[in-house]
């Protein structure tokens, strides 16, 4: 094979060809078989044990009963209404928390006097479990959706704020030097370099935030509510409808998976350029 002269156009990254669909890897093939298999074995075994040993329904319901509760819950609209309420609390609270975290994070990272004044308080409040103020919030704001939104904000805000601040301050020195050498004004340095550079951190904060938002909504509903999935758990538990409780847990699991999927998709698009997080 002859060696091309070194100063020729460097070898192109990939020849211009229509993309071949990647053949499924062996791992993936195994996964497609094993994952459902584990599910079937677990659920099947569970059903068999509960029925065989005649386990009390208040202790551990059989999967078939749980499925029934799930179907009934949606058929009567009960679970659906509860889902809507909880989702509203989560999404509203998360958006409010995220926006405040971004704005406040920007201000704190850019204005030195704000940073040295407020940051110690943030550090101090970080370690306090914000969920502990849930009863207080319910006492102040009431049993409606509003109190849950406040609790979600309280719980999701701090991690997102800290990640935003850390991210905005983590801009590598050489990129800032580069922009300064070009004579770029301060706001351009922020907008063109600091902000994109902070995206991985901000995004990590958002991922944590959404998980905490779900937590905050559910626990908030435990503490005091008139509707919602967490409220349903408390009600069903009180009525010894354990199958119903499991049905709600399944709904919550699906919500969690859906948010995670959404987060991953958005991250892939936003952070396509990042070495590790792509």
């Amino acid at each position, binding site marked *: 094979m002859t060696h091309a002269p070194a*100063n020729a156009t*460097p070898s*192109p990254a990939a020849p211009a060809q229509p993309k071949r669909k990647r053949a499924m890897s062996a791992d993936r093939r195994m996964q497609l078989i094993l994952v459902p298999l584990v599910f079937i074995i677990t659920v099947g075994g569970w059903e068999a044990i509960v029925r065989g040993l005649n386990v009390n329904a208040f202790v551990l319901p059989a999967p078939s009963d749980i499925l029934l509760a799930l179907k009934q819950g949606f058929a009567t609209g009960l679970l659906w209404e509860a889902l809507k309420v909880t989702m509203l609390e989560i999404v509203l609270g998360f958006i409010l928390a995220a926006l405040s975290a971004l704005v406040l994070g920007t201000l704190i990272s850019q204005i030195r006097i704000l940073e040295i004044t407020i940051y110690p308080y943030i550090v101090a409040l970080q370690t306090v479990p914000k969920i502990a103020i849930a009863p207080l919030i319910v006492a102040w704001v009431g049993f409606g959706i509003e109190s849950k939104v406040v609790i979600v904000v309280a719980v999701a805000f701090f991690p997102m704020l800290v990640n935003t601040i850390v991210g905005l301050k983590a801009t590598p020195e050489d*990129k800032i*030097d580069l922009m300064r*050498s*070009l*004579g*770029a004004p301060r706001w351009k340095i922020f907008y063109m370099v600091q902000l994109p550079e902070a995206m991985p951190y901000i995004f990590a904060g958002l991922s944590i935030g959404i998980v905490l938002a779900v937590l905050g909504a559910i626990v908030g509903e435990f503490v005091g509510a008139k509707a919602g999935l967490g409220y349903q758990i408390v009600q069903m538990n009180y009525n010894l409808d354990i199958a119903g409780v499991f049905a709600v847990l399944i709904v919550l699991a699906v919500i969690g998976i859906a948010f995670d999927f959404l987060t991953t998709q958005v991250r892939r698009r936003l952070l396509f*350029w990042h070495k590790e997080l792509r």
Partner: protein
Amino acid sequence: MTVKTIIECRKLGKSYETIDGDPVVALEEIDLKISEGEFICVVGPSGCGKSTLLKIFAGLLPYTSGAAELLGQPITGARRDIGVVFQNAVLLQWRNVLNNVLLPADAQGLPRRDYIDRAHELLAMVGLSGFENKYPFELSGGMQQRVSITRALVHDPALLLMDEPFGALDAMTREQMNLDLQRIWMQSGKTVFLITHSIPEAVFLGDRVVVMTARPGRMAGILDIPFARPRSLDVTATPEFGRIVTQIRKMLNVEQGID
């Protein structure tokens, strides 16, 4: 016809205040005059202040004594008529190659369409035609550095400052980049101020080589390099080349040599 002086400094000095006493002198008594179209190399050990000197020329650091002028104007801050290439390519990873090259236009609020043609021309000159839509993570170190050089030239600066631009590359890529840089310099007619750790690199590339010593950073001397252009790598094997490299080594009091 007088040749334009691009950059000039007289008795330039830079010292830092310390908390507990005597100021630290990074640079002292630097006298240098660079004319248009010259290729000046600065070589010296770590801590001799060569990066400090470059940052002063770039307007990134203020000097504390003496004078420094770019195109007759005292240097008081960043200037739009210089281009800087750092040791790391410092590309914005979220922008593709073309957008990275056009960064100076965006940073300075200038309309992109005035610079797009030039960007394409320069990319062709460095051998990166067809890579405009690639992202930094898809490029090798040498390719990234070439994008960085292109970016430094797109706004047609009067002076190109390069701070150990090939330091992060392997030796063979480095040699190739030296040749490419010479070619780009001859084609564009730019004035170049390049800092390096490598004595052979400095002698190969420069019209003149400034030798600096450390603590405090001072000029030990300036050598004229007599080889004709364009220089091929063969020139590095000539006795004359070896003589000059040895002379510089002696000026730096280096027994074992740097490269």
